[in-house]
């Protein structure tokens, strides 16, 4: 097998507090292969977003990554990068779509200006060339290039989310991290966006780390899935196994607490 794009080994993250530390991520290890769509599922507070932030080194105190942890992207330990390397590394190797990414666009700049911002920060580029590249990127996410001169408030929520994804793809990252990218959107828009991502990763070859609490959605789109419970990665398997033969008791309980779309409906009890 080729070298994984992302390799996490013995990752331990604490939230340091006055009355003792909270161990948010406990000894987590997993790999993501080139072009792979990897899902990370779990409830609020299980540590999945903490991992996502740590991969781009976007975690802030009181979060503290313990020594001995390794986060390797294309073989390079992200935790050892200096500030200049880190700046080059972000966006170019790993790009991140945040939970309410559609609100992360600058409301007083046009869409075109926000593309230019990213492109010029990572290398000399003329405004005209940047505009051309931006138009190309918008087409990737099914948005007409004439939207470049629009302001964020003139675009719908789904459109803004797709614009953020297009900006994330501007530097051809090897790994796209999406933390609950469609939670605030409707099912139809959610489907449109994720289907587009699925097509693009096959076309452009990037890997995806997809974080959500919607297990059903995750099974539909992911190749492999990791299930997190209270900071631990309790099960990692291919998506169909997670769905059809879940191994861990918690994975089984998660499925048991989800209402079904068809077939017999029994009273479900809440997972503890």
């Amino acid at each position, binding site marked *: 097998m080729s070298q994984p794009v992302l390799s996490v080994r013995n990752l331990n993250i604490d939230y340091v507090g006055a009355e003792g530390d909270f161990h948010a991520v406990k000894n987590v290890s997993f790999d993501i292969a080139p072009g792979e769509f990897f899902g990370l599922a779990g409830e609020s507070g299980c540590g999945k977003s903490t991992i996502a932030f740590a991969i781009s080194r976007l975690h802030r105190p009181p979060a503290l990554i313990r020594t001995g942890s390794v986060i390797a992207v294309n073989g390079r330990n992200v935790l050892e990068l200096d500030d200049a390397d880190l700046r080059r590394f972000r966006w170019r190797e790993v790009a991140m779509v945040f939970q309410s990414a559609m609100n992360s666009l600058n409301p007083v700049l046009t869409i075109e200006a926000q593309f230019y911002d990213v492109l010029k920060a990572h290398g000399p580029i003329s405004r005209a060339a940047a505009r051309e590249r931006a138009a190309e990127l918008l087409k990737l996410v099914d948005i007409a290039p004439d939207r470049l001169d629009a302001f964020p408030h003139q675009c719908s929520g789904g459109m803004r989310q797709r614009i953020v994804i297009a900006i994330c793809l501007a530097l051809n990252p090897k790994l796209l991290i999406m933390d609950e990218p469609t939670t605030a959107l409707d099912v139809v828009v959610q489907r449109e966006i994720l289907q587009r991502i699925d097509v693009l990763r096959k076309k452009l070859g990037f890997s995806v780390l997809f974080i959500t609490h919607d297990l059903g959605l995750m099974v539909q789109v992911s190749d492999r899935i990791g299930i997190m419970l209270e900071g631990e990665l309790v099960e990692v398997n291919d998506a169909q196994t997670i769905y059809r033969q879940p191994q861990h008791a918690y994975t089984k309980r998660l499925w048991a607490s989800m209402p079904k779309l068809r077939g017999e409906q029994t009273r479900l009890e809440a*997972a503890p």
Partner: protein
Amino acid sequence: MSDMTSNAILALDNVSKVFGRADKPVYAARSVSFALHPGRTLALVGESGSGKTTAARLIMREYVPDEGRLLFKGAPMGKADAKALKAYRSAVQMVFQDPFAALNPTHTIRYHLERPLRLHQPDLDAAQRKAAIVELLERVKLDPAQMMPKFPHELSGGQRQRISIARALAVNPQVIVADEPTSMLDVSVRQGILNLLNDMKAELKLALLYITHDIATARYVADDIMVMYAGQIVEWGAVDKVLDDPHHPYTRLLLSAVPDPDRRFDDVRFTDELSRIDEIRTQSALPQTQISQVGDNHFFRALPA
């Protein structure tokens, strides 16, 4: 809907609500008719902007219909007097989407439940009110002694939503409108709230309007379902009939987009509607006056030819 029967407690009869300028009207509700019955749950599903919350606001009398009538036990509410309005307000209660915003952060849980009791049942003395609060908290499966002195920020999202439900129940309502009551909660917590709604309906013979964009939970709690798009109810009927045999193209689109672990994204058998999203949306937004009946309790609006 023509099948409105006499035991309906609350009904919208051909109601329209228009926003925007006269030359560019936006129909948030277009000829909407439905009825709520004691001991039954009606789910209203659709995407954001489809008019679900407008329907809730019409029922809560926050909006006045531009056309059509709101009927309470058969009587039009348009010309209700003050006494009838007070009766209506205690009969129809709402549970909101955001349990963090629905409670006043400066007051205790006891205050939140005492207030509606004071206003709607002024005859109760202090001991009776306290007994009523204890009963309400037990009904929503919370520990009364522990909960009463607490403030909202000390509670989890699920606990807060239970308090919202207890507060709605405090005035002995006959109808509860729940607008996305679980969308901000975790899956495991969500289930407890859905079970609570199911129990309330059965034990108290409540008429429940459950507004959501989550079709799987709609199937779990509802007897009947309505699918709304661009202000129109495009398909309605018994929940299993509508979900198993959808007739309106928008219902089919919505169902094909619902997260479903049995259908991989690359499964080409289920991509027909998804390849025509824009077309279906444009067509479904047109006024559709022709209603077709599929079966006993299953109707849809036919697209204009």
